[in-house]
């Protein structure tokens, strides 16, 4: 298993990435995200910012076409299957698997290199404690508060030992007070692990809190033929 803070960690490199729908280019980005840095991509809904995340994560819908390369810590991952990219994904919904316990969600994410049931549960329990949720292992995710669910989602991503983080407006559905708290927690953990972070949002406060480079996308051209 690679140590995320190893010296060869060079971050996430987006080399002339451009995503198009038919003949219309939605996004084009050429940027390096150093370990521990955040790149914020801002734009209104429909501007294609989630599409960019899908491309980097390896889930691009086949209706889109993409150019350019993505490198992670020096390795080209452009064509790699999503399973091997080690992308830490956070969406605006926590998307906890509803049929598993809170702990089960985390154990599912623990890398296979951690062998043995006890060791895996131990790792998951530690990750829960790390986000202030000791003792939540056997809880039903549906019984958690919004803030607790967001913490579990973060813990689940972190315990999977990601190489970089992809954040798709992860704070937009939280209450104002809570949003600030979770935002700080996420950025702080990413920085501590020296993970490059790509954040897409339409909230200027997110961009401000990220303290990083900012790319603003133009609104999608309105041609009246949208779905």
């Amino acid at each position, binding site marked *: 298993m690679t140590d995320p803070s190893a010296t060869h960690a060079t971050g996430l490199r987006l080399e002339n990435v451009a995503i198009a729908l038919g003949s219309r280019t939605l996004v084009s980005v050429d940027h390096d995200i150093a370990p521990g840095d955040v790149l914020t991509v801002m734009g209104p809904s429909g501007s294609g910012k989630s599409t960019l995340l899908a491309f980097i994560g390896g889930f691009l819908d086949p209706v889109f076409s993409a150019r350019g390369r993505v490198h992670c810590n020096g390795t080209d991952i452009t064509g790699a299957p999503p399973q*091997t990219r080690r992308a830490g994904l956070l969406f605006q919904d926590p998307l906890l698997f509803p049929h598993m316990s809170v702990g089960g969600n985390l154990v599912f994410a623990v890398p296979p290199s951690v062998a043995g049931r006890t060791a895996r549960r131990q790792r998951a329990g530690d990750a829960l404690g790390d986000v202030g949720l000791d003792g939540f292992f056997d809880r039903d995710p549906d019984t958690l508060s919004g803030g607790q669910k967001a913490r579990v989602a973060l813990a689940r991503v972190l315990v999977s030992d990601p190489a970089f983080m992809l954040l798709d407006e992860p704070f937009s559905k939280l209450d104002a007070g809570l949003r600030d708290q979770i935002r700080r927690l996420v950025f702080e953990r990413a920085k501590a692990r020296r993970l490059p972070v790509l954040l897409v949002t339409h909230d200027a406060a997110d961009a401000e809190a990220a303290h990083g480079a900012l790319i603003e996308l133009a609104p999608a051209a309105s041609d009246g033929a949208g779905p």
Partner: protein
Amino acid sequence: MLRFAPPLALFVLAAPLACGLMGTVLPAFGFLPALGGYQLSTRPFADLFGQPGLWRSALQALMIGLLTTAISLAMVAGFVCAWYGTRAFRLIQHLVSPLLAVPHAAAAFGFAFMIAPSGYLARLFSPWATGWERPPDLLVVNDPAGFALIAGLVIKEVPFLLLVTLAALPQVPALRSLRLSQSLGYGRMMGFMFTAWPPLYRQIRLAVFAVIAYASANVDVAFILGPTTPQTLPVRLVGWMNDPELSMRFMACAGACLQIAVTAVALLIWVALERIAGPVAEGICETGRRFRRDGFARLAAGGMMAASALLVFGGLGVLALWSVSGLWQFPSALPDALTWRTWQRTGPALSGPLATTIIIALAATAISVAIALACLQRENETGRTGGNRALALVYLPLLVPQIGFLFGLQLLLIAGDADASWAALILVHVVFVLPYVFLSLSAPWRAYDGRYEAVAAALGAPAGRVFWRVRMPMLLRAVLVAAAVGFAVSVGQYLPTLLVGAGRFPTITTEAVALGSGGDRRVIGVYAFLQMLLPFVGFALATLVPALLFRNRRAIRGL
């Protein structure tokens, strides 16, 4: 591997259909080497047209198909337009939905037991209201005009059309259209009819066609409730097909061609009616009348729906009661005594057909669910839904009259010495089970939030693990419900079992229909009760298993 799923589904649905149609058409023109028919001729058709009362039978099948569909659709449309978005809607919806699982034959028997001159309704009102001390001499069931048959079909097609409509409702902005038209001053019923129904109807059109095809070519319900002199065309055809005189099969195949034509004409007439109905409705709409006083119409629409559901439930209850009744004379509303005698007496004869029914239904359902899952998962991988063409294909076995290709399929299987085998029987059930499983499963499957899979894959889970550990458990209830639907469809199949099984694989359904409506009510009660019990057990399991498995998971346990 999944790449082969859509072609496989296509093959499973279309191959029996195409082979069967060919196997029907060739003998209809005299070509059937197995029975010595080597030369093409129009003799079978000449024989067919020489049959007494043939045109009456054919015309009746046509009218029954159209009337059943028109009444069922009017009831569903009236109900949805009048009550959508209310508590009464949900109440009646929950009352009607389970009826989809009741096999046609069981519902028809129950209906006969309710409306017959010596039936339960007459008993309830006799002698105090009617003065009848003995059953009146009226031909209510098996009436020559076929009213009982139409009513018996309507009470089963209404739940089907309602469920299809309910599945289509989320795809149209129904509630917003209703609110908008109401704020413009329209009455609830016509406001919905003018704004939300047209796009809704477009979504359910294929299902309506399936009802026409089914009702115009139905055998089992027509055998139980339909006219007898002459019987409707499909019933007569099955009689000829099973005639010991093998040469009758040429004529039976010619008759099956006529049946296909009858169903096709019914469909064409319906399409013509659609063309007329559209402009007429537009004309009414353009007058600007608001139809605000629709209280009575709404009551009627809701009342008819509830009455038809209660009639079926009542009929099923009466069936169950007959199966355990001792002496039960007219006009007593309840039997004098309850006894297990009929069950004990029929028990030994029941176990064989019961086992056959369950084995075929389980196998056909398992195969269908596997194929449907593979197709949907393939669709999920490629991001392409088959679109309307694929939907029409799935509906294909439901749009062609069963008789039309089952006759030919039976002859081909006989020629290949493969008739009356478990494999043939299970596969022919798959032809009818797969469409329902697919239709039932596709909506929840496509509505699934794919971001869960993205999260799981990003966490490093390989495709198989994502499918089995994340998607399947989350959709377990939908899969089990689809399986229960498939199981119910298989249990209710009459004609495929009878023809492909060549009478050597009796099931609960074929045995029940064979008893006919004139048979011993207690024995009919036993068979029909079992017929409805099997689907009920399926649906109960589909509800209980996830509830038990996920009892500590509030978001998906379902109960």
